[in-house]
């Protein structure tokens, strides 16, 4: 008889179920986003499940294909995003997860480069610059997590304050969490840092040349990404489910609001803003945990 406390539920069954639910949650969130944005702009907006209708429709479309290479990378992109989400849910090494998530970006960039289209080429170039912007901040945040918990393993986030098990990451690394909020628009491809996909200037950047079911696959990958990014933020309060989900919801709402109240920036503006503010937040937070001695060598 398996009870709810059985570790097998939390170590295997729960992550597996979440991995299957992840694209659905991600898609719904995007639907909510579109609805909210529409309401903010005094439009009726599409139904919340519209993203799924879109994907279904894409799968019924005729394929227009330039070459095989970029299709291969699109699928590799999707599979890598799924893999990194799985690793996150199954509590693998945080550093490895961060790099695997980075690998999915690399595949997307290669996909964009593999077609001779100026739009996807520029998009890929910008995608690289965006990666150059957010990845250092993300890795530094992971480094701070490691300092506080003593390990890169996600499991350590639960156990580092044993036996008390009370102190969430949020209390020791509040500014690092803010730094994650800062790079959120990049990871979610939203304004003001939606530079690579800037649909008004370069028509969706690296994914410009996709049609039919492959565009559908890329969209599903995006669903997974939304889930991944928010789940990552949820790690900052693992002690209480209500607060944890609240934190994810807050991050999500934050990204929607920011998306609606800001205009797209140039690449150099993005790099400058994110580096200066992000590094400052991280250094202050580092100083805080050093002074309070809340770190493990």
């Amino acid at each position: 008889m398996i009870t709810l406390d059985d570790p097998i539920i939390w170590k295997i069954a729960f992550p597996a179920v979440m991995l299957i639910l992840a694209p659905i949650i991600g898609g719904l969130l995007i639907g909510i986003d579109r609805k909210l944005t529409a309401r903010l702009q005094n439009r009726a907006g599409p139904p919340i499940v519209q993203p799924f209708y879109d994907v279904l429709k894409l799968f019924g479309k005729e394929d227009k294909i330039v070459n095989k290479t970029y299709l291969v990378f699109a699928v590799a992109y999707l599979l890598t995003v799924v893999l990194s989400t799985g690793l996150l849910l199954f509590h693998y090494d945080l550093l490895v997860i961060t790099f695997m998530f980075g690998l999915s970006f690399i595949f997307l960039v290669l996909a964009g480069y593999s077609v001779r289209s100026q739009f996807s080429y520029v998009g890929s170039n910008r995608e690289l610059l965006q990666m150059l912007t957010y990845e250092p901040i993300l890795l530094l945040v992971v480094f701070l997590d490691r300092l506080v918990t003593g390990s890169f393993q996600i499991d350590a986030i639960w156990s580092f304050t044993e036996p008390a098990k009370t102190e969430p990451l949020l209390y020791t690394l509040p500014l690092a969490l803010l730094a994650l909020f800062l790079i959120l628009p990049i990871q979610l491809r939203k304004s003001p840092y939606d530079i690579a996909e800037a649909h008004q200037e370069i028509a969706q950047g690296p994914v410009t040349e996709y049609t039919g079911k492959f565009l559908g696959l890329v969209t599903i990958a995006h669903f997974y990404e939304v889930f991944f990014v928010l789940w990552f933020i949820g790690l900052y309060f693992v002690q209480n489910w209500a607060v944890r989900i609240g934190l994810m919801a807050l991050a999500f709402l934050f990204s929607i609001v920011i998306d609606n109240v800001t205009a797209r920036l140039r690449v150099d503006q993005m790099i400058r803003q994110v580096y200066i503010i992000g590094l400052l937040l991280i250094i202050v937070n580092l100083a805080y945990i050093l002074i309070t001695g809340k770190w493990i060598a």
Partner: protein
Amino acid sequence: MDGLLLLSLTVLVPVLFGIISYLVPGYNLKKYAVILCALVLSVASLLILYNGPQNLTVESINIGMSLPVSTIIIALDFLLLLVFLYFGYKDREYKVLGLAVLQLALLAYLELFVAGGEEAGITFVIDDLSIVMCLIVSLIGSLILLYSIGYMKGDKNVSSFFLIMMVFLGDMNALIFANDLTWLFFFWEGTTLCSFLLIRHYRDEPSIKASDRALWMNLLGGIALVCGIILIEMMYNTRFLSELFTAQATMPGALSFLPAAAIILPFAFMAVGAFTKSALMPFNSWLTGAMVAPTPVSALLHSSTMVNAGVYMLIRIAPLILIFGGGLLSTVITIVGGFSFMFCALLALSQTDSKRILAYSTISYLGLIAMCTGINTWLAITAAVALLVFHAVSKGLLFLCVGEITHIIGSRDIEQMQGLIAKAPLVTVITVIGLISLMAPPFGIFVGKWLAFQSASTFTQIGWSLVAIFFIIFGSIFSVFYYSRWAGKLLATKPAETAPPAHHDWYMEIPLIILAAGIFVSVALTTIFFTQLIDLPDIYGQEPGGLVVGEVLRSAFGGFSPLMFLILFIVILLIPILIIRVPKTSLTPTYSCGTGKEPDIGGGYFETLIGESKLLKYLNPIGILLLAILFLAVLL
């Protein structure tokens, strides 16, 4: 098997084959000598691996009469310096002249006044580190030899080319095994001579200039090394590397004005020697200049020989620095390495010449290895050895690919390589594999970076830890940038382009295929490599084998399974490659948002921001300043 026989197989036999191939007439006969040499060398290195660690003492050679090896080596050493003097005079290169004279004086001082008792000791040590190095030199070196048969066809100086290449390999092997520091110095200068001669292979203005620059910088490094050796003999009273571990340090009377901490001064000198050999900042310009040489030479310099000698030396002296309390020295080495790692990656980002990109990326990865030796914990040294191996395989492969691509399209500019996959699918796919292996998980470089990141996070002083992490993060991210851009360019094709009937030169392509397979095999074997082939001195307190749990590398901070992720990676790419079918009917030209024109794409190198002319004028002085700090850290 007899260790002496194996030693001569890896050291003397290449030299012998080199002379044979020099003497025999005709390209075909030379070719067979080269193939034979490659075979013997590979087999010999595998035998050394099979035979395991051992110590050897070679005192004299018997050819009719007994000749003491030491005397021969000293004589050759002086001869070598005279050759440098000759070239310095011939090219009117006064830096070379001056440095060679200085080195001559120092060497004479070492041999006449300092050389301790003539007590015998272990002259050659075959330990795990030298076995690993020997495998790199011999296996990758052999493949490069095979490749150059195809590449150098029709070259007019091909006889001397093969001779020097093979002498280089033999000399490098000797350098790796040498335990007697005075001998090691001779082999060290031998690599300088070989690389100098190979760089000026084409004998035109730019190559002579580049070779002279390489020569004077390496002579400078040689002077640092000989100073280090003199000081070691004075302070530690031994000339054998292996005996340094148990040596008693005493400050000689002549140097009593120095503070007590200066006991590690010789290692600072040796580190500077290593920096020049590995072309770390501020010595980077000789390696980027060396790009004028034929591509197999670049491959040899960058992957299996020359530059590895520098980091090899750093890995050798790292435990000694730890034993004799040079924590500050280690920290400065970390900074020098990290500085090169990050900024050379940034410089590579602004380049369009593929060989220059590779050159900067070599310096950058050597910087990372140097940085690991500076962090100097068991995890970091493991990372250093692992990076050394994985980098050699990937970088050797990439240089050979660039050579082949240059043969096909007649250009080294990556802008010209757009859509190469349609013209030359095999070499392009292999190049892309090589590029991905240098930036993405789960390949070897990633394993190394992952270990480096962990070891940097365990620094006792958190401030340095942050600096080291900063260098690793930005260095890695810049590398990802320029490698993926290049890979993307190779893959950019128009629809329905078909490959022209391929022209195969198997001498060039078989080494490529073997090395590409080597990338996958080396990752798959990571755990075995860690348990069997990395053996750290006791001072570190822990063995890399402690990392391995089943197929997983598990440190106190995290876990990663190279084999599992390699399989996942292959699956992720194979599934779409096998499943996706592109029906002819759905092929269309690029949509390009209806612009309908053949797009003119390119750019994005930010030369005005981070070009060589912008950055180097700041980076070189900082590099020199760091060297000054290196010595200050020891003396203060």
